[in-house]
């Protein structure tokens, strides 16, 4: 799951920092336990010590733990803030989205994602975006809570009915990225996936035009059928 967006870089780094912070604590607690078990068994003739742990040691351990917690907090704050930064589109990205992010609405519904592009084109399941372009997804839901999760491109976010949530990413390489829905949403939840296809800006323009034209043609055909009286 290599990161392919500036935000996920930061998440990846912070994940490893957190891993080592956790590992330090696990090793410290369990190492001390193992040491106590090996060294202080009554069966080896050890006598219990009457001397209490000095107050100074307690204060030092408390101070050490506080420093550790504060350090983890500050580091997390810095990296989270960086991960939240909205990256600017590159020159090689979509020209019309050079100053403002490309806004696409992602609608979660049992058990499929629908994507609405700025020019009234839409697609199901597969989101198509131009490379090197900042994309902002507006996450909404028409039924239950869903979570949009394409780990290579962005952190996950919930789509909650009645609220709009946001995901921002800038894909730096063309390709197809897999994603899943990550909040339990009923019977077909396990199969509720999504895909992001990253293509060049030129191909993207062509895709949305084609998508729009096809949708228009299909609608025209339906309207024509109704007007000619063949279908009610």
């Amino acid at each position, binding site marked *: 799951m290599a990161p392919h967006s500036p935000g996920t870089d930061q998440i990846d780094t912070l994940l490893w920092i957190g891993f080592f912070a956790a590992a330090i604590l*696990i090793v410290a607690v369990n190492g001390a336990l193992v040491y*106590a078990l090996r060294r202080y068994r009554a069966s080896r003739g050890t006598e*219990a*010590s009457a001397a209490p742990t000095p107050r100074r040691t307690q204060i030092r351990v408390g101070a050490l733990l506080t420093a550790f917690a504060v350090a983890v907090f500050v580091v997390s704050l810095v990296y989270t803030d960086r991960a939240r930064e909205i990256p600017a589109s590159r020159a090689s990205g979509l020209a019309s989205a050079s100053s403002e992010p490309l806004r696409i609405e992602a609608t979660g519904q049992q058990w499929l994602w629908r994507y609405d592009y700025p020019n009234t084109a839409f697609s199901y399941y597969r989101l198509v975006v131009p490379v090197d372009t900042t994309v902002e997804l507006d996450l909404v839901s028409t039924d239950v809570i869903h979570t949009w999760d394409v780990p290579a491109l962005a952190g996950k976010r919930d789509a909650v009915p009645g609220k709009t949530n946001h995901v921002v990413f800038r894909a730096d390489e063309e390709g197809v990225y897999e994603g899943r829905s990550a909040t339990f949403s009923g019977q077909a939840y396990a199969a509720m996936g999504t895909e992001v296809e990253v293509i060049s800006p030129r191909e993207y323009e062509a895709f949305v035009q084609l998508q729009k034209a096809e949708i228009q043609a299909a609608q025209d055909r339906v309207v024509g059928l109704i007007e000619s009286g063949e279908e009610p």
Partner: protein
Amino acid sequence: MSPPRPEVVVEGFPRRRPRWMEIASSAGHKDVGRTMVVAALGFLFIALVELLLMRLQLAVPENTMLTPVTFNRMLSLYGATAIFLFAIPLALGLFYYLAPLQIGARGTALPRLGQIGLWLYIAGATVLYAGFLFTPSEAGVNPLPPLSELAFLPNNGVDAWAAANGLVTLGFLLVAIDLVATLRTLRAPGMAWRRLPVFTWAAAICSWLLIAIGPVMLAAITMLLIDRNFDGVFFAGGSGGAPLLWEHLSWIFYSGAYMLILIAALGAVAEIVPTFSRRPLQGRSLVIGSLVAIAAIGTLAWMQNMLTAPIGIGWMYYAMFLSLALIVPFGLIFFNLISTMLGGALQMRAPLLFAIGAISAISIGLAAEIEHSMVAVAWRLHNTTDATAATHFALVGGSVFGGFAALHYWFPKMTGRTMGETMARMSFWTIALGTLLAFVPLFVAGGDHGEIVDAYKFFGGTGVSGLNLIASIGAFVLAAGILLTLANAILSRTNGARAGHDQWGGDSLEWLALSPPEPHNFDLLPDVRSDRPMRDIREAIAHSSSRRAEPVAPESQPVA
């Protein structure tokens, strides 16, 4: 000031009804507490069956053993059973049995309240499982609306879930009120708050915590029932309601319950470790203060569970701050528990073994929770099996290792018999191995491969097939270990070695009472003069018998 207590207690009317009827109708804290513990262990068994069914389904990719609907029902029942019917009542039952003994009381202050609490819990459990007669809930561990609304799950399952957990929570609340009243009014002469055993402190903290979080859950459940049955829109998104409201209310309860289970376990461990180290608990007041801090901070950090929801970034940082602040009190407790062992003379009996297992597993689970508290990392790891592994390490550490440590430690007090040591050791190592096998692979599957939770199947070729298989095998090992202890308890109930009243040389007052204690607990109680009253009593007895030894000895000479 405590009321004057009678020196002579008359009891022992001949029993006219069968024993089970006596127990079922009794409001004595020992009968109620023991019934609660036994019921909780029974529900542990049922939760295991549900877990194993889910793990069987997840053993191989795209398995079709269970239908999605059956899997979702097992998932929903498992969540409710493990938390509401096993972990919390096990802690409360032990508190209810032991706290009055530890403070030198002859009963509880409001016994009928505790009795009603027990039966509301049993009634709730019955309602949950009566769901099998029609349909159990399919809404998941935490039934988030709108999924749990009538429009998406129109059958009665969610109603059964809500009614059941409402009854159970109400029951817990009543038991907690009785415990608070008892601890405030019935402490023996000299039993100041600062002399209270750590386990009784845990009882007090958990009771107050339940009084804080219980009504929140009851309110949420009531709103859900109104939504589903009376056209309410509390949680209906888009029609004036807010699905996020349920998330807030339910996570306040679940976060508090998480802390409650850990506080109860650490309270028990803080009794067991000193007893078997032959050394008083180090930093006693610091440990107690830390337990209080955990209850407050841990519950206020509920939004740690909502870091992907549409809430402001400020709230996320607030939740991260509080969650990470927990490192200090938990760290101080671990430090003092281990510091008690360092310099002690460890007697490697079953209770200590399980207590060490609890410290170890809880430390791993909570350390892993650090990642889930770091906001940006939570955006990656939220709802992955990494989260499952973290909570299961912490809660298996708390309720299984910690609960079994308490069970082995107080079993002699409750039954007059000790649990078999060999079987206890076998059980401990099996559970330890099972926990590692069942949950370490889930850390990898979630952290490395982003495998999601609650899904009824997974797909091959995503790198998690081997991990899931190991986890499923581990779940069976874990279950085997747990069954060994349950079997050990059942067998030892009648065949265990007889236990004396002071089985382990513990320092708190329950060891003065007989094993099992008389209905009135104590005939006579000396004034409490320290935080180790039982040691004072032992020393006083030793002192008086050595002083009497000289004059008494000649008199006992046979008259020639």
